[in-house]
């Protein structure tokens, strides 16, 4: 065991990046070193926590000794651990990439914001009560908006503004829902609210408000309008962070609410959400196919892939933990693959000076690592074996066929075909000749290795499926009720 008292570790996940953020702000040089060191430390901490989780089971920790309702409780179970691990791994890749990507002036803004974002996301995944989730959600949103705007170009600023307005609207809606629930139950603890009878009109109103807020943040069709602009106009590592991580936090909260707080109400709208998810998959994929620029293609791919999470929701009523597990697997696989794709697209942009797909001239031989990263990430996005994307898709297909839900099965399959169209649209131009438009510039090695490692991770996830599913099951997060033993 570590020399630090075991009780302190979850807090360190928040404190370390926070301190790192401040240091990065104050320092005048070596920001990247601090950043990467912090993120590496974060990964180590997460590893240690997972080890402890598997040994002793889920547990709860009250920050500063002040328990709820006045203090803040941090809770760790299999689901939080998995999300923390996802964040830690992808963050490491993004940080390594960013160390080489940003100039010194840009780094001045990037690292403090990025570490703040990491702290906020860690805090979110460790939170267990509704209000703390609100605070951390806002923090994540603000940091993400600032990072989006950081590039300073006109399209980034406009997209960031739209993103900010949307995300604040979402938060306000969510908070109003929390207020209504609090008045009814007297607590913001999710499990307690789930166990307490709430007058149906209040529950329905609260659920509607919170769901709308979270759906805005998770960009489910038709609330996706802000995403393509924001994700494509940000700098490459920021785009990676937005698509891989930021957009998932809203879904995570929705998942927790679905299981703990509103199971009955949620099942009623599962069909609607499934339908919207299906539309997102098909429409997002079609839009991706039509794009001329690589980053827009990848951004629309995110819209489509997010749709899969919602597409599967009608299956959870009968499928339970198995379906939730498959969904989380898809979330993980997407995080790894999409971060890799955005970073690889960033490499293309840096190399050729543009990201027009048609004019990419045989990039594969001059940036083979980037091409490999795109290829492997594409395999996961398409849901081809072996990859995390394939495992999730198989499990969902299995569940939908077992439940006789043919529309979902067909959308899953069709989505894979459409994904193949847009992935290969990008890849084929990498193999074949286009119109060279100028002198290519060399891309740093780190910038090529980072996406490749993450893409390999997405493939490796295909072989680690059972391990991840076992980790997820610790603490039975998909069954309502309290399970900690602390």
């Amino acid at each position, binding site marked *: 065991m570590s020399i630090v008292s075991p009780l302190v570790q979850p807090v360190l996940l928040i404190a370390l990046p926070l301190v790192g953020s401040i240091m990065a702000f104050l320092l005048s040089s070596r920001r990247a070193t601090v950043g990467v060191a912090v993120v590496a430390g974060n990964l180590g901490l997460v590893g240690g926590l997972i080890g402890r989780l598997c040994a002793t089971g889920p547990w709860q920790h009250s920050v500063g000794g002040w328990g709820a309702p006045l203090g803040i409780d941090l809770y760790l179970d299999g689901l939080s651990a998995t999300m923390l691990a996802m964040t830690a791994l992808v963050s490491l890749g993004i940080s390594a990439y960013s160390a080489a990507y940003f100039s010194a002036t840009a780094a001045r803004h990037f690292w403090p914001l990025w570490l703040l974002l990491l702290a906020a996301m860690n805090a979110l995944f460790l939170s267990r009560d509704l209000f703390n989730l609100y605070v951390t959600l*806002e923090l994540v949103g*603000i940091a993400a908006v600032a990072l989006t705007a950081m590039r300073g*170009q006109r399209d980034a600023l406009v997209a960031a*503004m739209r993103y900010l*307005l949307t995300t604040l609207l979402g938060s*306000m809606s969510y*908070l109003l829902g929390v207020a209504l629930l*609090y008045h009814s139950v007297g607590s913001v603890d999710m499990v307690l609210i789930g166990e307490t009878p709430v007058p149906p009109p209040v529950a329905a109103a609260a659920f509607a408000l919170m769901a709308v807020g979270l759906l805005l943040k998770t960009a489910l069709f038709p609330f996706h309008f802000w995403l393509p*602009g924001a994700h494509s106009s940000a700098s490459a590592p920021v785009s990676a962070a937005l698509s891989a991580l930021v957009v998932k936090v809203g879904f995570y909260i929705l998942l927790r609410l679905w299981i703990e707080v509103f199971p009955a109400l949620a099942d009623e709208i599962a069909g609607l959400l499934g339908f919207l998810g299906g539309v997102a998959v098909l429409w997002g994929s079609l839009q991706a196919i039509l794009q001329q620029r690589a980053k827009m293609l990848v951004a629309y791919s995110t819209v489509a892939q997010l749709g899969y999470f919602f597409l599967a929701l009608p299956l959870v009523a009968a499928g339970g933990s198995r379906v939730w597990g498959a969904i989380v697997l898809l979330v993980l696989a997407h995080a790894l693959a999409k971060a890799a794709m955005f970073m690889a697209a960033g490499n293309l942009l840096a190399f050729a000076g543009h990201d027009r797909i048609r004019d990419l001239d045989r990039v594969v031989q001059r940036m083979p690592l980037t091409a490999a990263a795109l290829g492997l990430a594409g395999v996961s996005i398409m849901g081809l074996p072996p990859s995390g994307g394939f495992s999730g898709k198989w499990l969902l297909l299995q569940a939908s066929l077992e439940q006789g839900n043919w529309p979902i099965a067909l959308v899953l399959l069709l989505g894979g075909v459409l994904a193949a169209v847009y992935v290969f649209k990008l890849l084929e131009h990498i193999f074949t000749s286009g119109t060279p438009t100028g002198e290519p510039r060399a891309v740093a090695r780190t910038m090529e290795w980072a996406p490749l490692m993450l893409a390999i991770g997405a493939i490796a996830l295909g072989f680690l499926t059972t391990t991840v599913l076992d980790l997820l099951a610790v603490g039975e997060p998909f069954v309502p009720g309290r399970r900690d033993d602390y």
Partner: protein
Amino acid sequence: MTPAQLYALVGIGLFFVGLYALGVRRHLLPRILALNIMGSGVFVVLVALARRSSEVDPVPHAMVITGIVVAVSATALALRLMLRVAHATGSAQLTDTGDD
């Protein structure tokens, strides 16, 4: 109707007034103000509904204070960003798609 319930209704009303303005107004400054008003509406609801039994519950008050801090930070960011957008595009309105 008790004063508390009246305040709560006012809060919800503020929320929807802000929502309407957010959707309808094009200029960024009123939209940011609209978000602030929505936030204030939620805070009013929280405080108004704080009396759950004979004692007043301090937790919603704590939530409101936290919320105000968050809202201030968000507003600061929004205003600064609005200025940057206006500087870059020459207008303080968001062009093309994107609404609500």
